[in-house]
């Protein structure tokens, strides 16, 4: 597969009254054509900021992308002009967000909002755009699409609004769809509908997807590859089966153990990750996960382990990854 997007050494900071927030530090990864990449992390892990930075959607100030490159279509998106990035946003790289109510304009009909992008990016006239909008709404499973086009966002339910967002996202046939926790605000049966829809559209349209979530369950059935973030950094990256069945990073392992599974035996206790996530203003000098890690050695407190390729398909940032790997690959399955 050809590489579609390459992020190199991305660094984003927020300059606040309390100090400098190191939201994203040294994030590098590639996205292949047609691939679905999951980015998993808890709040404050930098998962959203790292992806918003790609298309320069960071509010400046207080935020600032202080380093790195984002290669897409033969150019560095962090260097191109504002006009050029606008041509990419919503057109080649589209985005859907967690809360469709706040990302849709409440005073415009959804028809007006979908056709805007079509007229702007694809140069369609009003009639063409309207016909295409109906097509798009039908594609995302909105019944009675031609009449619903003249409805306002509040007239749709949460799940339907997310469908509208997806229709808007796909309106210009993007090569990449960025989905920032699009099902977090939805009920579980509606979440299943949306994930089902995205899978179907992925087959049909063939776009690459970056799916950001805090829920390891959601990406297990959706992603080809998963990146785990902690404290603004990537701590592990692997193909989906490897990550869930043989996690090498203690944080990934901890996350998998701390959630109860619907299909597992009803055991007495969960194994929580003790302590709290790091303070992004005052980061520890060593590994960000060290204060909570049960596998910690002295070195972890003073020196941050680099994110290294440990095989052709996986990377991990841990001083003890070899021992972790030996444990995992030796048939140990927590």
């Amino acid at each position, binding site marked *: 597969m050809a590489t579609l997007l390459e992020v190199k050494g991305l660094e984003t900071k927020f300059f606040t009254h309390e100090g400098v927030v190191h939201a994203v530090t040294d994030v590098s990864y590639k996205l292949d054509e047609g691939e679905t990449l999951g980015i998993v992390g808890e709040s404050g892990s930098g998962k959203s900021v790292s992806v918003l930075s790609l298309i320069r959607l960071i509010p400046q100030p207080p935020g600032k992308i202080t380093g790195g490159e984002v290669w897409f279509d033969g150019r560095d998106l962090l260097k191109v002009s504002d006009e050029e990035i606008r041509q990419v946003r919503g057109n080649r790289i589209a985005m859907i967000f967690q809360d469709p109510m706040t990302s849709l304009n409440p005073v415009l009909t959804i028809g007006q909002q979908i056709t805007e992008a079509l007229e702007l990016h694809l140069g369609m006239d009003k009639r063409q755009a309207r016909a295409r909008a109906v097509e798009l709404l039908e594609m995302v499973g909105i019944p009675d699409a031609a009449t619903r086009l003249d409805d306002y966002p509040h007239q749709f339910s949460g799940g339907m609004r997310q469908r509208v967002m997806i229709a808007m996202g796909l309106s210009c046939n993007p090569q990449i769809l960025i989905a920032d926790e699009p099902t977090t605000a939805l009920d579980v049966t509606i979440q299943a509908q949306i994930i089902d829809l995205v899978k179907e559209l992925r087959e049909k349209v063939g776009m690459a997807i970056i799916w950001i979530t805090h829920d390891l369950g959601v990406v297990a059935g959706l992603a080809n590859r998963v990146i785990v973030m902690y404290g603004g950094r990537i701590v592990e990256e692997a193909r989906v089966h490897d990550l869930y069945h043989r996690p090498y990073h203690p944080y990934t392992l901890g996350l998998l153990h701390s959630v*109860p599974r*619907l299909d597992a035996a009803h055991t007495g206790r969960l194994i*929580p990750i003790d302590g709290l996530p790091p303070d992004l203003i005052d980061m520890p000098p060593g590994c960000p996960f060290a204060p909570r890690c049960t596998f910690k050695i002295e070195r972890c407190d003073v020196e941050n382990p680099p994110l290294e390729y440990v095989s052709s398909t996986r990377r991990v940032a841990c001083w003890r990854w070899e021992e972790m790997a030996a444990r995992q690959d030796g048939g140990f399955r927590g």
Partner: protein
Amino acid sequence: MAETLLEVKDLKMYFPVTRGIVIQRKVADVKAVDGVSFTIKRGETLGLVGESGCGKSTTGRAILQLYRPTAGSVKFDGKELTTMKGEELRRQRRRMQMIFQDPYASLNPRMTVGSIIAEPLEIHKISSGKEKQERVQELLRLVGLNPYFAQRYPHEFSGGQRQRIGIARALAVNPDFIVCDEPISALDVSIQAQIVNLLQDLQQELKLTYLFIAHDLSMVRHISDRVAVMYLGKIVELTDYKTLYDEPKHPYTQALLSAVPIPDPAIEEKRQRIILQGDVPSPLNPPAGCRFHTRCPRVMDVCRHVEPEWKNVGTADREHWVACHLYD
């Protein structure tokens, strides 16, 4: 068999929809809870699951008489709560407490942690002075916080720590029964397990009885002895956690279980999902017959007209209650 601590019978909680500003006319009712019945035994955890708007939180509040129920009966330790008033009700409230979902909104930002936890002790005239201070410190230790935190304010704490403060406040009056209303939904994944473990430890130590309300089925299964599934103001199925997850009877329970993602790609690849069509109808005007019939993959003609009966399809010692015409 343990004794019954709480008995809820045909509980209804309607909220009026009014029109007009000066003269308010009632034009309709939101039937948030429309006839639910269940019991909770002493020391047990009953899980109550359902999607947003199904009435699960309202049920919890109506039990504690934070809302006065429209109809039905709530018996706590043999005493009817719905007709109780004033001092008598206040005395009962000492024994029933609540833990809320949002640890950011449920603690007064202008009070110190110490005074937040001490407030129920003052209201119920349990202790004062030095005794009260000692009790606060004891409670902080009990929930795994430093007693020294009593002087601090809520904003100085993380979500998980705040939830611990909320738990300490609920425990201050030595309750028998606690309604946990989505106590971990607002917390990060790695913190959720800490709080769930704490709740389980406290239950053992203090012999507590829980009503655990949540939308996360995996977590409810983990913590509950029995689980009730709610849909649009009614309980559709109730049985022990194992039977519910191994042999769900109601098509809604089946769909709900199949929709929960499992963090294992090998299982996810093979899983057959039951995808429900459409959205939950409005509780303002719920469908006739079975309320689930508009989305049910196994709908029959009778479901559209006749409300299914709530009955035990299990055995006497392994009860399995369900409301569905498939089991007529």
